[in-house]
């Protein structure tokens, strides 16, 4: 998942979702800042984290609730910065593989209140990875920050 073209790598792990909005904005803030610093950055969404990437959610949740910019604004800022980099590396949003299906979510005990049915319900650009890929990303990162 890493391109090895940045000056460093930071991997954020987001476990909270729409039911806990007070803990949802900071990973996006930090990831956007890291992207602005020309650091290669990714956010791994697991547990309830993928609920933040629903197409009909990113415009409704923001760091200050209904006030200020929604998450979609910071997602766009960060991904735009990545795309503009000479390396062409964007800021991937990666989702735990098991959470991509209702069966997988049930296996995780997340079949209630998750709110999406498939990756088609999530914003564009989301990639799905499994545990091995996540572990590889974590071991190759300069820092892993978990929320």
């Amino acid at each position, binding site marked *: 998942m890493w391109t090895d073209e940045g*000056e*460093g790598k930071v991997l954020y792990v987001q476990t909270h979702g729409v039911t806990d909005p007070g803990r949802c904005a900071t990973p996006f*803030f*930090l990831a*956007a*800042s890291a*992207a*602005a*610093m*020309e*650091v290669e950055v990714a956010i791994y969404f697991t547990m309830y984290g993928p609920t933040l990437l629903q197409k009909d959610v990113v415009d409704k949740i923001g760091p200050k609730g209904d006030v200020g910019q929604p998450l979609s604004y*910071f997602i766009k*800022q*960060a991904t*735009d*910065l990545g795309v*503009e980099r000479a390396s062409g590396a964007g800021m991937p949003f990666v989702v735990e593989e098991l959470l991509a299906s209702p069966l997988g979510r049930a296996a995780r005990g997340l079949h209630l209140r998750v709110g999406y049915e498939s990756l088609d319900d999530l914003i564009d650009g989301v990639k799905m990875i499994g545990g091995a890929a996540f572990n590889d990303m974590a071991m190759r990162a300069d820092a892993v920050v978990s929320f």
Partner: protein
Amino acid sequence: MPITETPAQVLDCKGLACPLPVIKTAQAIKTLEPGQVLELLATDPGVEPDMKAWTTRTGNELMAIDQEGEVFHVFLRRNG
């Protein structure tokens, strides 16, 4: 030392909180030619350590930070 060079662009980020001044600065400086100066206006109290970290990482030059009241004037030169 006061900056005598006229900035090629002034970026007004007054009233914006972290991380927006950093993000907008990163975007704005890419529109300049190497060697040109960007003046950032910000009221975010964290702008000084943020700009020091950002320039260290990106290789752009932090020329000076002046404060007038609540407004920080940050002068940055694009690396080339």
